[in-house]
């Protein structure tokens, strides 16, 4: 019961019944990071997948126990580095909830816009990376061209391109850049023009469709049972958008649709993400001209101390529901902090849905699950 699965080191030995055990990763072009999958194959057909994690485990939860409520936010950027803004927002919201800090309207709106930009950037990178997993190299560069505009906006306003640390408890670290609105508008314009390219190159492509349709099908019940969230669950018909269920920041005053597909296969997950980008653009368009004037940060005490108790904050990152659970003993540092990361639950479903498919299907399934390894390992 407790035996460790042996990581196969002897390559000459095949398992019983001609099983082929392949170590996919931690250095493998399709795992996008240091995910280690021990894949048991029968010819080309997958019999079992067993993830071995921890290659980028930094014990962020333990680390946060020794950081104050201002300091621990920056670490969360390093979890799901593609939606670092949203992670930061989750932590800031939790501290605000725990201390009843009033957040100015301006900060709320700007946070929402930045969160949506982050979501688009993350999905852009995902489109490119997934197309590359399936063997199409070119869409990666087209997707990065648009993503580059977002990182430029982030660089202007937040001072960094990936791990921004722009959100502080109470609002924003400093005010937005004067060019922020014009740049975002320029991005929205270009994005709307260029998004059709993905239709031509990827969505409509007959090879892409046949590679993804009916591959890695996740049923409605399994999506719930496995705790899947985000686009993975929404592609199976589960309504789980935290922006709708428990609106935070300015999400309660914007109109957008929760994208839901019912097929549950890799293609549905792809479609959900592409449509989600369009919804994000819709949110940005509603807010970008209506950024209220005023303070960018609320009044906070110098030393933040959460009241004794337990706090839980859920936000919707690009990959799904991020939950931050803090047990506070009333000190300046959290007593226990737990990040419920979306990638962890989404990874657990991989064995279930990829079993019985081909190696090529594993790439499509893994690609559309959109795994970010630091998010899983934490």
């Amino acid at each position, binding site marked *: 019961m407790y035996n*460790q699965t042996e990581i196969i080191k002897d390559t000459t030995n095949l398992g019983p019944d001609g099983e082929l055990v392949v170590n996919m990763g931690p250095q493998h072009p399709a795992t996008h990071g240091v995910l280690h999958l021990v894949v048991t194959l029968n010819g080309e057909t997958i019999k079992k997948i067993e993830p071995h994690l*921890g290659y980028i485990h930094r*014990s962020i939860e333990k680390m946060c126990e020794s950081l104050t409520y201002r300091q621990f936010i920056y670490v969360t950027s390093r979890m799901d580095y593609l939606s670092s803004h949203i992670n930061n927002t989750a932590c800031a919201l939790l501290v605000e909830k725990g201390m009843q800090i009033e957040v100015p309207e301006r900060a709320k709106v700007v946070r929402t816009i930045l969160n949506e930009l982050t979501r688009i950037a993350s999905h852009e990178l995902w489109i490119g990376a997934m197309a590359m997993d399936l063997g199409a190299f070119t869409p990666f560069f087209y997707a990065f061209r648009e993503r580059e505009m977002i990182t430029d906006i982030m660089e202007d306003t937040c001072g960094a391109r990936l791990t921004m640390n722009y959100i502080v408890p109470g609002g924003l670290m400093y005010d937005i850049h004067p060019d922020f609105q014009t740049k975002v508008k320029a991005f929205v314009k270009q994005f709307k023009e260029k998004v059709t390219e993905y239709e031509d190159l990827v969505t409509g492509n007959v090879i892409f469709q046949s590679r993804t349709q009916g591959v890695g099908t996740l049923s409605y019940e399994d999506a719930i049972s*496995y*705790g899947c969230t985000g686009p993975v669950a929404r592609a199976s018909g589960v*309504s789980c958008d935290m922006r709708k269920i428990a609106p935070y920041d300015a999400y309660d005053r914007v109109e957008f649709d929760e994208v839901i597909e019912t097929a549950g296969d890799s293609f549905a997950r792809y479609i959900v993400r592409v449509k989600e980008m369009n919804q994000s653009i819709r949110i940005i368009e509603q807010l970008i001209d209506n950024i209220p004037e005023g303070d960018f940060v609320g009044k906070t005490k110098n030393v933040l101390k959460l009241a004794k108790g337990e*706090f*839980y904050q859920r936000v919707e990152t690009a990959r799904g529901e991020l939950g931050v659970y803090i047990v506070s003993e009333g000190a300046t540092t959290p007593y226990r902090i737990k990040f*419920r990361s979306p990638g962890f639950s989404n990874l*657990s479903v991989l064995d279930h849905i990829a079993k019985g498919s081909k190696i090529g299907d594993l790439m499509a399934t893994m690609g559309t699950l959109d795994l970010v390894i630091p998010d899983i390992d934490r």
Partner: protein
Amino acid sequence: MDIESIKSYITAHAPEATFDETGEWLNIIVESNHVKPLAAVLHGQPMQLDFLFCLTCVDYKTHLTMVYHLTSSKDRSINIVIKANVNSADPIIETVSDIWRTAEFLEREVFEMFGVEFLHHPDLRKLILEEETAIAVDEQKELVTEKKGYWPLRKDFEDPINMIKL
């Protein structure tokens, strides 16, 4: 379903459960051996709490507390937290991975980080830090009794090699 009816429903099925409403959500505190039956009741009709969105453990030094965050995919406004204290020296609790499949990985993580043993778990192994601590569990238990602080996320954990003191 409002909170009062939820409470009366739970009391009907698990009379020993106590409630704590000070937090954001309704907390149900039960004995560790009652978690599994209560989970089965909550998962079934009419509550249908079929979405386990967080499972973790908190080390309170004197004891460990298992925390289950539940919600329903039909009505996401219901959020219920189950808490169960387990013994710190020899923590054992029944698994819920046959009710919510997502618990399989989450329990593996808790096992690895806190040393909580989940009975009847299909595949209870280390998940994240397997290579560094690939010692058989019997030896691990000896380590726990002999030298405190083997489990990484417990409060008494000491790692002189990897933790940098500033």
